[in-house]
């Protein structure tokens, strides 16, 4: 494997007595798009700020390629950064904002102008060079911030919840834009967000964070299909949980007695014991609407939500509520449905948070 573009080694940062970041190690390959995903206070922004040099780690190290940048000044790191608030310089126009990092590096005016023109056309902002930031829309400001962070061709680009100020429609557009730019430039990106959909849409790999630690690291598909913990299952994608106790174990295959007494089979994810309280996870699209024979539970439809390409049914069952996603069909509130699933799809976690 090639040398990592960016590697964090046992990175730690304390605030007062508590650890905001607690021994985080992460190795990011050149050209990779890695997202730090977690709820607020999980330490993801603190990690980003330490990589950028705005905060000093209490322990551990940060390497950019082979260079140890743990204690380097921010301006010596050569890392691009897009802030949540964009942080465009309000007294400079679009072109001056984008040229700023080149000016600081002493790039001659002619080369500077050529690079700015390249970025402006790449961001599809031709004609807006002389606008001041306050004259731009949120999406345009976002693109200027991105251009300014990329114009000096940094090996690594950091993005701190850069889309949270945009409305939904625009967010989708900018996400595609970021993906396009990532693919055409091949820059390594570390992205921070609390939006799991965004993380899955953009990333090569996602690091799910909780209480200052990476609880799971993997591709979006792997995290979605085989989350290693109940927390990750909840945080990545939609999930149903049914409470139950283990009735029998056979290797990884467990029989669970659900709260209404029904027996159901699934995959044990953790080491479990007979009689233990568990939470059984099912993705909404994994639950099948059976005609009768293969059904595990009988439910009643409470709400029918139209999602465009699919329907979401919110059902109550004797074992607990379930959300089901299905291709279109004729369903109405109050209908009785027979629900079943493949034992391979049900993942069984230790009960609790």
């Amino acid at each position, binding site marked *: 494997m090639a040398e990592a573009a960016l590697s964090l080694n046992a990175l730690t940062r304390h605030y007062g007595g508590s650890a905001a970041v607690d021994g985080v190690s992460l190795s990011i390959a050149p050209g990779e798009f890695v997202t730090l995903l977690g709820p607020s206070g999980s330490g993801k922004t603190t990690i980003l700020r330490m990589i950028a040099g705005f905060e000093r780690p209490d322990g551990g190290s940060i390497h950019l390629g082979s260079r140890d940048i743990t204690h380097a000044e921010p301006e010596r790191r050569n890392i691009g950064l897009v802030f949540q608030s964009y942080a465009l310089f309000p007294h400079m126009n679009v072109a001056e904002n984008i040229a700023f990092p080149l000016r*600081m590096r002493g790039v001659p005016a002619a080369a500077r102008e050529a690079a700015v023109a390249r970025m402006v056309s790449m961001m599809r902002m031709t004609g807006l060079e002389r606008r001041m930031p306050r004259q731009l829309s949120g999406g345009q400001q976002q693109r200027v911030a991105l251009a300014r*962070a990329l114009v000096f061709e940094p090996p690594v680009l950091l993005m701190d919840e850069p889309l949270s100020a945009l409305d939904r429609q625009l967010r989708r557009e900018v996400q595609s834009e970021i993906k396009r730019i990532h693919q055409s430039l091949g820059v390594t990106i570390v992205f921070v967000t609390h939006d799991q959909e965004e993380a899955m849409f953009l990333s090569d790999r996602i690091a799910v964070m909780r209480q200052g630690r990476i609880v799971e690291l993997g591709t979006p598909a792997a995290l979605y299909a085989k989350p290693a913990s109940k927390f990750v299952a909840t945080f990545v994608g939609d999930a149903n949980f049914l409470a139950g106790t283990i009735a029998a174990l056979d290797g990884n295959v467990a029989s669970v007695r659900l709260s209404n007494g029904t027996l159901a089979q699934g995959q044990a994810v953790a080491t479990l014991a007979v009689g233990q309280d568990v939470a059984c996870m099912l993705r909404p699209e994994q639950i099948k609407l059976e005609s009768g024979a293969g059904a595990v539970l009988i439910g009643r439809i409470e709400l029918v939500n139209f999602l465009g390409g699919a329907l979401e049914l919110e059902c109550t069952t004797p074992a607990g509520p379930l959300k089901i996603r299905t291709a279109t069909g004729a369903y109405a509130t109050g209908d009785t449905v027979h629900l079943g699933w493949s034992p391979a799809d049900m993942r069984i976690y230790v009960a609790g948070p």
Partner: protein
Amino acid sequence: MRRALPAGLLALPLFLFLAAIYAWPVGSLLASSVTDPSPGWQNYRHLFTVPVYLHVFFNTFSLACVVTIATLLLAYPVAYHLSVVSQRQLRWLMFFILVPSWTSILVRSFAWLVLLGRRGIVNSLLLSLGLLHHPLQFMFNTGTVAFAMVEILLPFMVLPLYATMRNIDLTLMQAARGLGAGRLQAFWHVYLPLSLPGLMAGISTVFVLCLGFFITPTLLGGRRDVTVTMLIMQQFTALLNWGFGAALAAVLLAVTLAVLLLFNVVLRAGRRVA
């Protein structure tokens, strides 16, 4: 137009008040510079041909420059500090900055006399400690006048600077650092330009106040520290030469306006360059 009219009418009383007690008397006073003692420009000819008057003007403006620059250099870091401290600390610091400015300038100038006089506190202390054998002459020189003026004018610089700095987003400084600017470069290219409105407001306020200072230079200054205001006072009260006093006042007013205009032009040009 219909909506704008009532608002304009509401300002009318103040307008009439100012016209009656300010514009009319000041206007007629300034007019006396070309009518008293006899119609003509002789007062101005006198002012611009006698070197001592030009010298006083030069002294007044150079004192104002020195005081303004010193005030700016002292106030800038203080204002920055105010803009980043917690609300609680800010209340205390503001209190200490504002309390002196609620005290009369006369009292504060006399306080400097008590402190720096021949038998003042500083001299007595140094003598009793044996560090001096003869009292030092702190008083009646330009340095002391400037010193006291800086002390009196500091709040007028700190407050507009603080008002501007409070609204500067410090994330911008981090952004600048992250994009390759060192601390000084980030200050020079980002913070300083963003603080310019407050800086210019402070400079013009302090500079204009300096030009009109009368009590402090009169009490603390020596024979050579004559300012234009002292000269005007002398013409009106001692020599009863109203026409010439009015000419001095008119020139002071004109030069002050010219300087303010120049500030404005420089500020605009500076913004365009940056």
